């Protein structure tokens, strides 16, 4: 049975191996060439002024000098309230985003929603949400709702839909098909398959996504005040415009502390749920 007929010519043939085919080699060369060209052209367009660049260390030293010591009294008088507002904007915005992102995430997942038109519609919403920066969303909502934290919360929510919806949809698509099949064989209706089949599979990922986005939103809502959408950004903007560098440094320091606390908090919660 097992008698391989060894052809001498194939046995003796000299075989060569190269990592890349000639076409791949050419493509790689073109890629590197274009990369270098892009860097050269970019450097020409931004017109670096050498004097300013050489001056920079001195300027940094000067700024740090003005920033130190931070104006601690600015915290109780202004920052504290603004910081709470920022946290509220981020939290409310994230909650609002969850409500809107869940149906869109379900709609975009091709294994759950087997309708190409709906998949593309949901994808369009997600891409639109993500392609517009939080600051731009804030400008739009300040125009619609007037300046204040509500505009900020909406800006955060609309930017987050794309993020949460996309990752939630991907989690749904990656869930194991076997248990879903098992539920289908029991005659379960669609919604029961969602709540008992898909949801338990994606729930840790879902909360991880939400926590991560909340973390990002805290940092993003800190700058929304620059365009009048409430929060700590307003305090930062005022201090910057009046050249109170010691207040600026106090604001930055407070933000650093809050972000650090949130980081620890989020890591702890994530450990518990997974």
């Amino acid at each position, binding site marked *: 049975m097992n008698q391989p007929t060894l052809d001498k010519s194939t046995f003796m043939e000299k075989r060569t191996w190269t990592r890349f085919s000639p076409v791949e080699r050419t493509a790689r060369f073109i890629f590197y060439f274009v990369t270098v060209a892009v860097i050269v052209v970019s450097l020409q367009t931004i017109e670096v002024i050498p004097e300013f660049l050489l001056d920079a260390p001195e300027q940094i030293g000067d700024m740090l000098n003005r920033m130190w010591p931070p104006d601690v009294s600015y915290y109780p008088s202004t920052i504290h309230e603004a910081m709470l507002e920022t946290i509220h904007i981020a939290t409310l915005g994230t909650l609002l985003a969850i409500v809107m992102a869940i149906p869109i995430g379900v709609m975009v997942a091709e294994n759950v929603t087997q309708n190409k038109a709906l998949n593309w519609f949901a994808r369009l919403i997600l891409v639109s949400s993500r392609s517009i920066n939080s600051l731009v969303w804030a400008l739009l909502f300040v125009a619609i709702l007037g300046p204040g934290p509500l505009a900020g919360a909406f800006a955060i929510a609309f930017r987050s839909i794309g993020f949460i919806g996309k990752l939630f949809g991907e989690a749904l698509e990656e869930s194991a098909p076997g248990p879903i*099949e*098992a539920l289908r064989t*029991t*005659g379960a209706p669609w919604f*029961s398959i969602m*709540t*008992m089949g898909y949801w338990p599979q994606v729930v840790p990922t879902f909360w991880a996504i939400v926590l991560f986005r909340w973390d990002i939103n805290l940092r993003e809502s800190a700058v929304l005040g620059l365009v009048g959408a409430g929060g700590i950004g307003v305090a930062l903007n005022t201090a910057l415009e009046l050249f109170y560098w010691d207040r600026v440094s106090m604001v930055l320091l407070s933000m650093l502390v809050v972000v650090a606390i949130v980081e620890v908090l989020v890591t702890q919660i994530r450990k518990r749920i997974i």
Partner: protein
Amino acid sequence: MTQPATLQEPIAQGAKSKALVIKNLSKEYVKGKPVLTDISLEIEAKGITAIIGPSGTGKSTLIRCINRLVDPTTGDILFNGQNLATLSGRQLRNARRHIGMVFQEYNLLERLSVMENVLSGRLGYVSVWRAWLRKFSAEDVDKAFALLEQVGMADFANQRADALSGGQRQRVSIARALMQSPDILLADEPTSSLDPKTSVEILELMTDQAKLNHIPVIINIHDVSLAKRFADRIIGMSSGSIVFDGKPEDLQNDHLKSIYGGEDWLT
């Protein structure tokens, strides 16, 4: 329920005997490349039927056509007075409630408790609200406990499914299928992921439960000796067709040769 007039007669037959009747069933995943060609079968309302055959021969496709996890290309599947091949939507869901299924990879919801997994067998009957809030009726819960008792998993009711071993998982999945109070039990390679001893235990459990509940079982299995030991009837498949259909004791080496091809392995 309105059925096409042409199907009245065979449906009436199917209803009378409670048997499963498969007529001229074919399935092509890719056009022109049939996986099943013109399968006709009648399976009585009792007993264990084992389907044997090499991998990729269409055993899984055949069994999945019965509960329509796979849609057949042509043919009829008559069961409980209905043609399963033509059902859709709510009618299909209602028909599926009467067909239990056990899978090779158990297909339990890993992050849910054993109890929730068993209760999920009732999802075809429970409203979506009650399912979401896990408000199953006391009757269902009692039945679930009784079944867990019967499959020997009563102590594990509150454990998460991902804490169980393969054999334990398969026991839970059998309890889930029985929770449907099915009229037939399908099993797609139920022992292929288990060790030999556990495989025998699982097959014993399935055959015992089938007798107890008076329901027929169709098992896809590639272990010929297990098939001979547990089945009342063996169906041998090769490249999408039935090449043997008879009692286990009639299955000879010649048949196995035509089912699996070659003969070196038959020693």
